């Protein structure tokens, strides 16, 4: 463990760390463009120059390992002057685009220019022209003029996504970032290049020009895209979600997330959201009050024998919802049949994306839900099942069997569907309960490796829709056996008392990145 001095303070650091890493660990900020903690070191921007005693010239902090007894100064006159010089060079070809640039407000170049008080340019020649708003990939827009050639995007594609579409072409001041001939920046993680680009050269085609970043509020949440459960931030303003960004969580996603995860917020504001409770009267679904919907369910369920009622849970539900659904079915409805659920799947890879394309199949399994089991459909065919309570619509997700399943389900005497979106399933239900998407509710998810993370409510539910916990408790109340509590943290306390694998979990301990269940 070498000991070294930084700005007059003597500190210890781990062996093999560079000056920049050691400085960050000790709360000293060194401006930098090309260094990224999760990429290899390039040392090409020269922004991180510092003064080291006994080294005659200034040296770059990002690529100089700390040695025993080193004396580093990061804010001397000499350093500031050099940094200002580097900034001046960076700005030579940089356009005055801030008013139309999406990065403004979270731009390193803007920030450092402001901090170093650079107000004038001595450069009188023409700036280098470049391609503006060029679609370098299906989801990424590239502005050649704004690029400062830090090569972070190049290194990301080579080292993290391992697809290597990008490279620097030409030399000197003609150097440009481009894709290799004939391909475009199209990989499952391409939007991470937008996040790590320190300037506005790479922008998200989807988010572009939607809103200024300084208006956005951030809520810490969990990506519902697949069972990896990447930690994310939901960026929203006035009840509308604009983008999802990854949040650092070394156990789960490091600092990345996949492109598909980033568009999961699209489901929130679509025209086919269910917004009011519906009950089938005659042949038509009609809008009713929540109480009427709950009463209809209670009456409908009570008419049918216990062993003729089935329940299909959702792999998208939170742990708390799974638990309360279990409780509703087993304790309130008194049903012995197992709860089952269908988990949609897609192709996994070895970076982040996991096979199960739902937020919480692992959590569901912890609560005894049988995943990928369709025995209730078989039972209906045999005539053993008269009523079904379904959360979500994954049961009709598979388009091959969709019509058959719908046909079978329409034979039921009583069908309750609790879902976020209108679907063929909700249109054949007797009672439809509009519920909340991931951004509209609070709870915890268990990822495929057993990490339990907390997700928070960012935006309100549309119209009369309610978070699932409230709906489940409403049904229980109408059945005459209300739950003790539906506050997510209290429910979790109850879970940790009753479910063995969740024994060590409570909201205070979860923190921002979650903890692992013991199984």
């Amino acid at each position, binding site marked *: 463990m070498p000991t070294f001095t930084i700005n007059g303070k003597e500190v210890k650091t781990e062996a093999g760390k560079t000056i920049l890493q050691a400085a960050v660990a000790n709360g000293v900020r060194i401006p930098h463009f090309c260094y990224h903690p999760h990429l290899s070191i390039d040392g090409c921007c020269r922004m991180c120059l510092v003064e080291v005693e006994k080294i005659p010239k200034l040296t770059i902090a990002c690529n100089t390992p700390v040695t025993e007894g080193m004396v580093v100064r990061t804010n001397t006159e000499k350093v500031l002057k050099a940094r200002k010089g580097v900034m001046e060079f960076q700005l030579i070809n940089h356009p005055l685009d*801030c*008013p*139309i640039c999406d990065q*403004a407000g979270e731009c390193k170049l803007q920030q450092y220019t402001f901090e170093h008080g650079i107000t004038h340019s001595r450069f009188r020649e023409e700036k280098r022209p470049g391609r*503006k708003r060029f679609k370098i990939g299906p989801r990424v827009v590239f502005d050649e003029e704004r690029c400062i050639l830090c090569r972070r995007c190049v290194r990301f594609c080579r080292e993290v996504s391992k697809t290597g579409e990008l490279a620097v072409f030409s030399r000197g001041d003609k150097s440009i970032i481009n894709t290799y001939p004939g391909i475009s920046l199209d990989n499952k993680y391409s939007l991470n290049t937008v996040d790590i680009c320190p300037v506005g050269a790479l922008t998200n085609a989807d988010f572009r*020009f939607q809103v200024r970043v300084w208006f956005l509020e951030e809520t810490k949440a969990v990506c519902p895209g697949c069972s990896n459960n990447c930690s994310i931030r939901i960026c929203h303003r006035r009840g509308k979600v604009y983008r999802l960004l990854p949040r650092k969580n070394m156990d789960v996603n490091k600092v990345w997330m996949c492109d598909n995860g980033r568009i999961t917020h699209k489901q929130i504001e679509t025209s086919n959201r269910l917004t009011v409770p519906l009950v089938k009267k005659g042949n038509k679904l009609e809008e009713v009050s929540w109480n009427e919907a709950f009463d209809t369910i209670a009456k409908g369920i009570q008419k049918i024998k216990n062993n003729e009622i089935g329940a299909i849970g959702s792999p998208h539900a939170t742990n708390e919802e799974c638990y309360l659904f279990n409780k509703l079915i087993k304790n309130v409805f008194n049903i012995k049949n197992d709860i089952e659920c269908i988990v949609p799947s897609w192709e996994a890879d070895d970076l982040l994306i996991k096979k199960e394309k739902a937020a919480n199949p692992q959590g569901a399994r912890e609560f005894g839900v049988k995943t990928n089991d369709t025995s209730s459909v078989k039972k209906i065919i045999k005539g053993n099942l008269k009523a079904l309570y379904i959360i979500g619509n994954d049961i009709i997700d598979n388009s091959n069997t969709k019509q058959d399943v719908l046909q079978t389900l329409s034979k039921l005497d009583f069908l309750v569907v609790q879902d976020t979106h209108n679907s063929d399933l909700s249109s054949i239900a007797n009672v439809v309960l509009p519920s909340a998407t991931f951004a509209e509710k609070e709870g915890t998810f268990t990822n495929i490796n057993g990490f339990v993370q907390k997700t928070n409510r960012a935006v309100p539910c549309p119209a009369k829709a309610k978070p699932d916990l409230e709906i489940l408790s409403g049904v229980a109340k109408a059945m005459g056996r209300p739950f003790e509590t539906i506050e997510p943290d209290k429910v979790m306390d109850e879970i940790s008392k009753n479910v063995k694998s969740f024994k060590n979990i409570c909201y205070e301990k979860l923190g921002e990145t979650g903890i692992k269940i013991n199984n």
Partner: protein
Amino acid sequence: MIVNRNITMTWWERIYLPEIFRGISVTSNHFFRNLIGFIPALLNKDKKRKIFTLYYPDEKVEFPPAYRGRPVLVVDENGTERCVACGLCEIVCPAKCIEIQPDETELEKERYPKSFSINMARCIFCGFCEEVCPKEAIVMSDECEIADLDRNKMFYKKDQLLISKNKLQKRLNYIKEIYGKWNY
């Protein structure tokens, strides 16, 4: 808050009465001028009235360029607004009365305001929006007759805000002069 004004009066001012009489003479001068100043104009149509008040709304004052009337959006020679929907005026406005929805345009400026509205019932005519604008796209016009009985009508939409550059030239020159020294 206590403001300590250090006013040192001269000996002449301290004896009080002469300054009082000077003040009274200014006031009464205006009073009598307004009282009889219109008579020459009444007798002879070509003569101008010598009084200070105006027959508003038949007569109007021409405001100096420093006057801050309602904020408007400048339309350039090519017929489109200068604004690029950067959102700076939206965030700087102390009354929070500006609302902008940016969008992409085929024009060279890339970005334009799909909708732009100013709630004139809340605007306090501070001129911050004009000062912060990097494109000199929003300026304070000389229009001040915007009172209305209906609050909803005070909600100015983009088409009500657009004013051609020629009409605002005086103010545009003026803001260049006053804000230019800050090296924006």
